[in-house]
Each structure stands twice: as C-alpha cells, then as structure tokens.
C-alpha cells in the first residue's frame, strides 16, 4: 500500500506498507514515533489518541489507509514555536497532572481536540471530553485543573492580542 498524508505539519509519502496496518503500528513501528501509546487494543483507554484533521482519533482502531490525505498530529507534533513544550504540556506538569505519564500523550491530544471545538469549557465539559481516556494514577482532578487553566490563559492571551 502507498500512503500520502501530512504528519506533524510535514507531507509524507510512504511506499509498500502492509494493507492491514493500523495507524498506531504505522506511527510506532514504522515511523518510531513512540509518544503515541498502546494501552488496550480495544479502543477503551485512549492512550493511542492522535488528532486527525483536528479530531480525537484512536490510532489503534484506525486503519493507516484511512488517513490518506489527512493531517495527523501526534504528541510529538504538539510543540511551541521554539520547539519546546506547549502551554498545555507545561500546564500538565505545573498542576501535577503527570504521574507515570503513560496516558499523558493521549490526554493532551484529547484536551487539544476539545479546546479546538470549545475554547473555554467548564470542568464538567472537560471531564466529558476526557471520558474516552483512562488514567490509573491521577484520579483526573489535576488533569482537569491543567486543561481548565490553559483554556483560561489562552482566552486571556486572545483578548490581549
């Protein structure tokens, strides 16, 4: 299979991929982008979440062929203009939302997908948006704190601009 798509802002053309390849295996095994995690293989945990054209997508349940022509953003593609962490990534650390870190990339993807649709969500809306992502360490509260604070800071920045 031949596949052309945009990955983390760069166009990509790949040849001779196995037809059955999942997006998760493409990212992890073919491209060595291991920030996207494999947690359950049944679409239950959201650790494999990526953005496909801005939408929350479970890479383990998505055939690689389906992203032809799409823009895929993985956790490695979420960077500030200087190449460092984004405001949201910093906020996750600032608010204690990262413990073991295995769910964190998927959580950050879910949060960015939410903030694209709803720039100033309530805590309840944040919890709802995270309900496809499992975290076993944090009890979610500090994750919600980090997303809420980032949304508010971005709103302030937009007003200032």
């Amino acid at each position, binding site marked *: 299979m031949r596949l052309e798509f945009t990955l983390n802002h760069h166009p990509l053309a790949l040849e001779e991929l196995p037809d059955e390849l999942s997006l998760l295996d493409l990212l992890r095994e073919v491209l060595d982008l*291991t920030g996207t995690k494999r*947690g359950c293989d049944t679409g*239950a945990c959201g650790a494999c979440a990526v953005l496909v054209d801005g939408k929350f997508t479970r890479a383990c349940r998505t055939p690689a062929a389906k992203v032809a022509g799409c823009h895929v953003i993985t956790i490695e593609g979420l960077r500030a203009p200087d190449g460092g962490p984004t405001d949201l990534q910093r906020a996750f650390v600032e608010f204690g939302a990262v413990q073991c870190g295995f769910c964190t*990339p998927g959580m950050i993807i879910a949060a960015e997908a939410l903030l694209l649709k709803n720039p100033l969500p309530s805590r309840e809306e944040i919890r709802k948006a995270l309900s496809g992502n*499992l975290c076993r360490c944090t009890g979610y509260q500090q994750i919600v704190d980090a997303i809420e604070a980032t949304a508010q800071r971005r709103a302030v920045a937009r007003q200032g601009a």
Partner: protein
Amino acid sequence: MAELQYIGKEEIQNVDGLVRAMGEARYVCDMHVPGMLIAKVLRSPLPHARITHLDVTPALAVPGVVAAITSADFEEHGNFGWPIKDAYALAYERVRYVGEAIAVVAAETETAARAGVEAIALTLEPLPVVSDIHHALDPDAPVIPQISPTGKGNLCDVSIVRNGDPDPLLAECPFVLDEHYHTPHQEHAYLETEGALAIPEPDGGVTVYANNQSPFINRDIIAALTGLPPEQVRVIQPPIGGTFGGKDDVLYQTSAQVAQLALLTGRPVRLIFERTESMLASYKRQAMDIHLQIGADAQGNLQAARAVLLADSGAYASMTPMACWRATMHAAGAYRYRAVHGDTQVLYTNNGYSGAFRGFGNTAAAAAVEIAIDELAYRLGRDPLDFRLQNCLRTGDRTMTGDTITQEAGLTACLEWVREHADWDRKRAAYAAQPADAEVRRGLGVAAYFHGSGLGGEGLDYAASTLAVEPDYSLVLTCGLTDFGQGSRTVFTLIAAETLGVKLDRVHMLRPDTRTALDSGPTVASRSSIIGGNAVALAAQKLAQLLTFAAADALHCAPEQLLRDGELFIGPSEEPLSFEQVVDHARAMGLQLSVAARWQMPEIHWDFQKGTGKPYFGYVFGAQVAEVEVSRKSGKVRVVGIWAAHDAGRILYPRGAMGQMYGAIAMGLGFALMEGFRFENALPQTTNLTTYRLPRATDVPEIEGTFIPTRQGLGPFGAKNLAEPVMVGTAPAIANAVFQATGIRVRQLPITPEMLKTSR
C-alpha cells in the same frame, strides 16, 4: 530548622513531567535495539491441568523463529518465589490458572513469534479445579501447590493476632455486631502493560530493562534461574507506566524468560504483554471473606473484636501471605479495644493468582471493618462520625494488636476536618429527611483508617543512596528504589538539594541500575519517601560535612562558624565562597566528593506464631466522607463528592502528594463500584478494559482533600507515608453513603446496580 527552600513548596514540579508530557519518555515498549527478537508466550487455556506433552520443536521449524523455551531451560525448573517458593518462570508439570505461561518463542517478527506459539505441541490433561475458598480444604479437593507450604493441602499460610481474650468481653457486651463481608479480586490495570527487554553481554552476562518495581530482587531471581552469578546480571529501570503493587512476580518471570532467550540466541529479546495477556496472566488483589464480631458497651465504647479472614491466593502465593498478615494487623480498624483476636487463612485455588496491590490487605480489611463500625453505630443509634470520634485511636493509645502509638496521631483531626468540610451534620440531617419514595436519593458516609508504616514485621526495612559531585559541579544521586509514577525521583531530588543547600537543577537523579545504585529492598509498602528519603538525606548530610570541612579550611575558620546563604558558604571574615569554589578547594585538599549512605527502620519484632509483638514502628491515619446519589429505579450510584483528610506528618512534594491522594481515591472508587475481577469455575470473566470497567473522568467527582500536619513522622523532615493508605478509606465511605441513601446495607464489593434496584 532554617526555612526550607524546596520541601513542601507548592510550586515544585515533577522532574520527569515535561519529558513525559512531550511524549519523549522511552518506556520498555518503546525501546528498539538492532537485531532485537520479539517474544510471544504460549499460555494455558485451562485453570488446572497436567502437562502430558510439551514439544517446542515444531515451533523452531516455523520460518523466522529463532528459539523457544520451557521450564526445562531454567535452573530448578524455574522455581522461585518469596516468602513461599511455589512459582515457576514457566509452568512445570502442571498449569494452575488460565493464562499461566507455558513456553516462550523468540522470532524475527511478531507474526513469526505468534506462528511459533501456534506450532508448539501441547497436550493438557484437565484436572479438577478449586474455585471456592470455602471448599479449598475439603478432603477431596485437589491440592494445587507442588508442595503444600503448611503440610495441610491448600492451606497456604495463616496469620493471627492474640491481644487479650475477646470472648468474655463480647459475652458481656449489650451490642455485638456479627456479620460477613466479601471483597473482590481487583486488577491493577496500570496503563502500561508488563514488558522486558534483555540484551546479551559479551562477558556472557545479560542486561535487562524491565518495568518491575524492585530491580535487585529481579536481578537475583534472573541470576538464580539462568544460573548466572548475580554480578553478571544487570537490571536497569526504564521509565515505568504505573505499577500499584502489580509489577513484581509477573515481571520476574518475564525478565527471566527474555534473559534466558537472549543468552540462548545471543540476541536482544523483547517481550511486551498485550492487554488481554496482562489481564489473564498478572496477579490480582486477593478476594477475601471477612467475618467480624465487634462488641460495644452501653455507652458505645468498643470493647472487643474477633476477625476471621479467608483469602483467595489463587494458584501461587506471591505476596498474598504478607498482604494477609497486614490485613490481620488491621482487621478491627483504627479503634481502641480491650481485646482482639484475628485469624486469617490464605488458601490456594485456581482463580488466577493474587499478590501485592495498593493497600496490601488493608484495603479489604478496612472496607469490611468500616462498614461494620457503621452498622454498629446505627444499631446503637449513634451518628457514625461521632461514634468513630469516641473510639478512634489517639496518641498513646494501644492499637488492636496492643501496640502503643508513640508518634503523634492525627485521626481525630482528620475526622473533624472531613465533618466540617463535607458539611456532615447539615447534610446527614437533610438526607435522613428525604421522602421515602424519592426516585433519586442522596447519602453521606464516613470511614476512618490507620495503616502501619513500611514493611513492619515483614522484614528488614532499609534503603541506600549514593551522591557524588561530578566534574561539571552537578550532583548525581542514586537510590535503589524505583519511581514508577509516584514521584519518588522528585522527592529524592528535593531532599538532596534541600539538605545540601544547592540549586534544584544541580541534582540529577539516575534511575535504578543494579550496577550503579545500591540494593534498597523492594519498592513497595509506600516506603520510598520514608526509607529511601532518609537514606538520601543521610547521603546528602555526609556530603555536606565534606563540603563544610573544605569551606572552613578555605575560609580559615571553624566549621561551626560557617553560615550558608543559598549556595554560598560564608565565613566570619573573608569573601563568601561559591559552591564551585568550595568543590575546587575540596578537590585540592584531596577529598573524595562521593558518599554512600544506608538508612534502616528501627528494628521491631512480631511473633508470627504467638500473634503478639510490635507489628509496625509507626502508623498513619485518615478519614474520608463520600456523598452519593442513587437512582432507586436503575440502582446506579453516582459519587458526587469526596472529602479526604490524611495525617501525613510533613508533606515533602505537595503537588505529588495531592496526586497520590486523588489517584488513590479514584482507585478506591473503582474498588467500591465497578472493579470486581470475577472468576466462575476458575475461568476469568473478563479479559479487556472494555468489560473490566475502570473509573473514568466522569465517574470521579471533584475531590476536596487535605493533609493534616502532625509531628514525629519517621521520614525526612518529619514525613509520613501516604500512597497506599489513602485508598483504603474510599470504598467503605461510599458503601456507608449508599446505606444512608437507600437503607440497603451492602456487605459485598463492588456495589452493583442489581443490589440497589427496587422492584417497583
């Protein structure tokens, strides 16, 4: 003590946080090395069977397969285990649970490894199973272990407490609660499944990257099973994606398997569990049946208790005997009694196997006794929180084992905090007045707990740390305890920087590597901050002494004349010296700026035969209130609020401590309402995270928590432990809230809608 710079500061962040948030941390499943083989496991489909034929030769004929191993490839057939040596690296002669590993195939690709597993010739002769602990000791029950550790068939172990004689006291009590409780198996469900990567070394040894909790124990087991001397086995901890007690024995097996395959093939071998394998093969929290008799006098003073516990260890002992010992030490709860007896039997069955899990026995014990205390309060017509305040342990009291609490105990303060913050008195009255026919009903419930610190009577409780000044004036710190997400690398970094008076970013903590760190025992029992933290503090004090000595020499004064301001060393007369200048001077003096230190818990003694002694050197305490909303039609429970107070001495790393509290409560909520891992006729009823439900962001309420400061914590700067004990209060608080809401007293977890549905 001078004002602290880092310890207890809200703004301190996890030292591993950014790398993880950016997706750059490489867990073992993310590691690729040249020439690496992929390993896959043949697992038992049956809960109990004799292996009558096992031949891996057909697997070796599959293209791409490089090697395959069975128990015959290990020393002593791969036999290992502590405290009971009943487990195997791969099944030997028999399989004893569904999912037990029988053989492992290493191949060039995952597809070839799977085909190799398929090709293995295996004949299993089914044997009768033991699936009910109540029948494990029947005369005709098949004996599960190879050798019964007690000489009494499936009786794996016993634990007892003998504190006075409860019988005459119970006979005199006007109120004696006498009930049975059941707590389920629980799956750890760490987001990162089990995995190990072994790399053969030119000297004939092997290096293993594994996501286990206790690297030195793993090293010693790999060495014993492969026949290598321990110094030729090196275990390195990569970043780890959560453990909660679940990544010990199962990782020792996996590590030994990949190590043996790497030694046989001369190539790196990696084995990563699929989620289904993780659910089937890994050990669980042991299910328990708990029978409690608790008596109170007419004034509501608790008098005596008797606890009889039966625990399901499943096919192997793992840490279940020790977890059940802890359960026995806590079975009558955080209260004063005149006499308590506890009797626990640990039984072998074919229900998977059980071992360590957050709370380690106390999660089950506290769930049972806190529901029981609630029942007793109701029968006495008392407010459940008042009743707990009247009877709860205070400084100087004797615990249920007769042990005197010598450090300041914060339980009363915890109960008073949750009473106030949950608005207990008002809400309890309001919910008591709800109309009986209301479809959605609310309830408030409380639970209190205590938890012995560290390993206690289980064994010598020590850790070691090294600290050295590098050529670039940075500091390299090690400890043999693992950070699997709980934040101990951050805590250790803070302790070293605080003690030495240096900038935080000067300190670089290495991950445990058995070649560079020192053996620190197992990373269990919420002991990292206390035991490991004290070792780090001690190492930092030793290094500080060397630097002070050098600074005094350079500044021509006595060491006690020196003052510190940030990193500066200030003498009585000359210009202050920077940290770098002091290090340079120390080196010029010929001082070696590297130190090692070991810290050990004061020794205590518990007599396992007599059931008497001192089980723990110290205790922590806490209380929680849960508020629930129950739909009487559907029976569904929604937890709308949790208020939690934990006596934690001094908090070292506030963000991390709160994270432990929230995470422990979420896990306790799962234990209360959704997480029973069920076996039927020894067959597991769930194999994935779709059918085994974990709490999601929408299931967990906003939590209001606090840490009650108390003095005399055993840890560095007066810290106490917290990662596990916070969990034990949540499930009973929820069960007790459900009772106020519905009038239904649930004595079996998890609480399901079927238990609460009204048939209207």
